[in-house]
């Protein structure tokens, strides 16, 4: 306790230093949960302080080493962002120690600035297109190019090891640049990206000698064939995870077998659909240490001997916790998976077109399951089984199969979700597609499960009211936001009036992301949200009947958010101009694939995308995107320097 209490006693008149030190101590305590005097003693000795006031100056800094050591325990980027705002020296120290950099909107800041600010950066995560791009609401060519970032990092940060990109356009050129520039490159994770071909992947495979993770998640790849797999070095690889489930073409079995044989560290393997069931056994034999497995197609005809061998190979996967793939899973093959079930914490059946009751036998064995993705073929019955057997469940996603209107009768209703909310005490994240819903169900769900952090309900019929009472679903969603105090993400659907959004504005104080479609009556709806939801960072709206007034009244709010997307709403061109001129640090993008010949202020725009930025209007807009200029005389500028 020595050094600190001495300081406090001696320098009672020098508040700033005390404050600084106690804040540093606070962070220390926060990180370690208890004041550990041993650690204080292990710090480099503090400079001795005499009583002379002149020695304790306002700008006296802590030794860099002290701060650096403390900051090395501050992991979360949110905390680091706060730390960097305390004072200049803290800013400097923080930026020189940050290893993992996250940029939620690639246009919010310039790559050069980021490269310069974080010299020790080892990992970069970037997100590009708005979320609604997943549903084809953002026209092709909008933007989100990875190249400027790769180029900037390649020139300045050659020690970069990890790059994770989401919804960005990545070219083969980018991949080749990565391979050529970062000699210790370890991790490439591309989620929902596009623009590259298997040639680019081959470049990564062949050149990055220390590659550990290569994951292509739901990317759109120009698939030129399965050769890329043979480009991994012939000597043993350091691969830990490989995910090529989104590729179409066949890879050569021998390439894959040999790769597995020389990748002793491989823990996660996700095959693509063209890997057939008859070869699975041979692959698994070479990688019994797998923790995550994504199979290929699960539907070929196997003879009894093959089935026996495969069953055995599967049962040898003693460490397996996560299972996915399972394309076209045939009911008769479900028993093969039984040996895996007791250990599974994650199961993705969303590509397995298996129906009830075959699913029950599988699910009832998965008592440790934490994450379950299925199609609505699971029906209410299946979800009841989940509620009974999967007490550890944290995340549930139920996707539409399109089968409910098909020849097979699939009965997935709101009751399914109610059962799971009753039976699974740890459930905190839900994505549920359903044809119709009721307020009563929502109220039950909220009562059962106030610990929701993510609640996304998609009532597939737009404007569908509570089908029992014919009322809007306002009261139901009110219950959700009232009771689930920790709600971070919400998607609403069904018939909703402005009242629903008043409730959300009043109660959903921790809500960060909200998605709305076909809802509301007037500008009040948007006003409630923008004035009420304090933590709101991302708001995306489509096909709602309002725009101008609420936007302009709450313009300041938009600078506290990452982005706002509105499409097919009533936002006028004039309002966009006003908004842009009012808020200097927002980019107001008008996205119009079929712009009118003249643009009077009252004309509506197809889509707007508004985001805060310190980088000014971007220079890579295509011809259908206009960034509204800040100066009223100019009106609209289309800066497209390519």
């Amino acid at each position, binding site marked *: 306790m020595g050094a600190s209490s001495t300081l406090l006693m001696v320098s009672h008149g020098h508040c700033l230093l005390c404050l600084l030190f106690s804040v540093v101590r606070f962070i220390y305590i926060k990180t370690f949960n208890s004041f550990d005097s041993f650690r204080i003693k292990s710090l480099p000795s503090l400079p001795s302080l005499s009583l002379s006031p002149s020695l304790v100056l306002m700008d006296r800094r802590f030794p860099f080493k002290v701060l650096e050591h403390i900051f090395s325990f501050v992991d979360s980027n949110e905390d680091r962002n706060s730390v960097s705002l305390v004072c200049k020296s803290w800013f400097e120290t923080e930026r020189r120690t940050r290893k993992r950099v996250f940029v939620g909107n690639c246009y919010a800041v310039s790559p050069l600035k980021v490269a310069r600010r974080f010299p020790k950066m080892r990992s970069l995560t970037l997100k590009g297109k708005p979320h*609604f791009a*997943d*549903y*084809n*609401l953002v026209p092709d060519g909008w933007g989100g190019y990875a190249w400027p970032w790769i180029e900037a990092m390649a020139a300045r940060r050659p020690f970069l090891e990890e790059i994770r990109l989401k919804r960005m356009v990545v070219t083969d050129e980018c991949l080749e640049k990565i391979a050529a520039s970062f000699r210790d490159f370890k991790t490439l994770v591309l989620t*929902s990206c596009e623009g590259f071909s298997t040639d680019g992947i081959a470049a990564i495979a062949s050149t990055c000698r220390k590659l550990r993770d290569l994951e292509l998640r*739901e990317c759109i790849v120009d698939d030129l064939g399965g050769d890329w797999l043979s480009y991994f070095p012939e000597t043993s690889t350091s691969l830990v995870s490989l995910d090529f489930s*989104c590729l179409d073409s066949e890879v050569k079995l021998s390439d894959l077998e040999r790769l597995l044989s020389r990748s002793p560290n491989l823990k996660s393997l996700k095959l693509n659909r063209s890997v057939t069931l008859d070869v699975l056994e041979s692959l698994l034999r070479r990688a019994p240490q797998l923790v995550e497995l994504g199979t290929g197609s699960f539907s070929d005809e196997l003879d009894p001997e093959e089935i026996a061998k495969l069953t055995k190979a599967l049962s040898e996967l003693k460490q397996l916790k996560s299972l996915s793939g399972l394309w076209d899973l045939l009911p008769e093959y479900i028993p093969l998976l039984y040996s895996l079930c007791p250990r599974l914490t994650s199961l993705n059946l*969303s*590509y397995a*077109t298996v129906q009830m009751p075959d699913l029950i036998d599988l699910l009832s064995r998965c008592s440790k399951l934490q994450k379950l993705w299925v*199609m609505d073929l699971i029906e209410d019955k299946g979800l009841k089984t989940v509620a009974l057997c999967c007490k550890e469940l944290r995340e549930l996603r139920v*996707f*539409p*199969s*399109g*089968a*409910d*209107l*098909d*020849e097979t*009768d699939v*009965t997935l*209703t709101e009751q399914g979700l109610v059962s799971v909310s009753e039976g699974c005490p740890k459930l905190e994240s839900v994505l549920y*597609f359903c*044809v*119709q819903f009721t307020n009563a169900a929502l109220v039950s769900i909220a009562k059962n499960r106030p610990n929701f952090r993510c609640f996304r309900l*998609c009532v*597939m*019929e*737009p*404007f*569908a*009211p509570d*089908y029992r009472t*014919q*009322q*809007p679903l306002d009261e139901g969603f009110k219950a959700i936001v009232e009771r689930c105090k920790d709600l971070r993400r919400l998607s609403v659907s069904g*018939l909703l009036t402005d009242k629903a959004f008043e409730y959300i504005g009043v109660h959903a104080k921790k809500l960060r992301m909200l*998605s709305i*479609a*076909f809802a509301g*009556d*007037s500008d009040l709806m948007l006003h409630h949200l923008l004035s009420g939801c304090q933590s709101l960072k991302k708001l995306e709206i*489509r*096909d*709602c*009947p309002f725009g101008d007034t609420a936007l302009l009244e709450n313009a300041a709010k938009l600078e506290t958010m990452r982005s706002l997307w509105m499409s*097919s709403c*009533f936002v006028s061109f004039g309002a966009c101009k006003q908004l842009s001129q009012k808020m200097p640090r927002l980019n107001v993008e008008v996205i119009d*694939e*079929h712009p*009118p010949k003249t643009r009077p202020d*009252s*004309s*509506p725009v*197809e889509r707007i995308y508004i985001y805060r930025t310190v980088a000014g209007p971007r220079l890579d807009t295509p011809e259908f995107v206009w960034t509204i200029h800040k100066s009223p005389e100019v009106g609209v500028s289309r800066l497209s320097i390519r």
Partner: protein
Amino acid sequence: MMGTVELNLRETELCLGLPGGETGAPVTGTKRGFSETVDLKLNLNNEPEINEGSKPHDVVTSVSKEKSSSPKDPAKPPAKAQVVGWPPVRSYRKNVMGSYQKPSGGTETAAFVKVSMDGAPYLRKVDLKMYKSYDELSNALSNMFSSFTMGKYGGEEGMIDFMNERNMALVTTWDYVPSYEDKDGDWMLVGDVPWPMFVDTCKRLRLMKGSDAIGLAPRAMEKCKSRA
């Protein structure tokens, strides 16, 4: 009831075509967006007939929407920009959905039609080629919708008797009357035409509440004659 409902039929009518093309009375902006995003999967509220039936709330909400939404008519957005993204499922998954819907075989010979029943929350689909007569179809439908029928003429007899002309007299007393939409888009009573012809011309089936079916019966025979 028919009178008051008719006033709003125009507004509530959701058509699959481009706005302003046919009736010249564009519905409100949001509804237009919705009507264009509807694909075949979301047919539950698409038919004007269903609107007039058991869902009074649709009428109410569409009227209120008309009142509250501003009169400014957005420039007609092209259909392409709005017939996207609903339900919000990634294209990856859409492919799975699409491939699931393909029946395993014999697509060319199947004759699937959707069957809706007033008041039931789901649509069903039946393959008409699987049945050889109206009786068989009737039994199948009774089984399918047995949980919803509470008719006086319940389960065993089949709630629907297609074959006889005496149907027309009994129509008003029965709870559900089968009607079908033919190739021309007209709604006819089931049972008037020979079975093979029915299978050929039937596009979808609807089990209407008895009271709504008055007025359908006569046209069937006329049409039949005009085709013969």
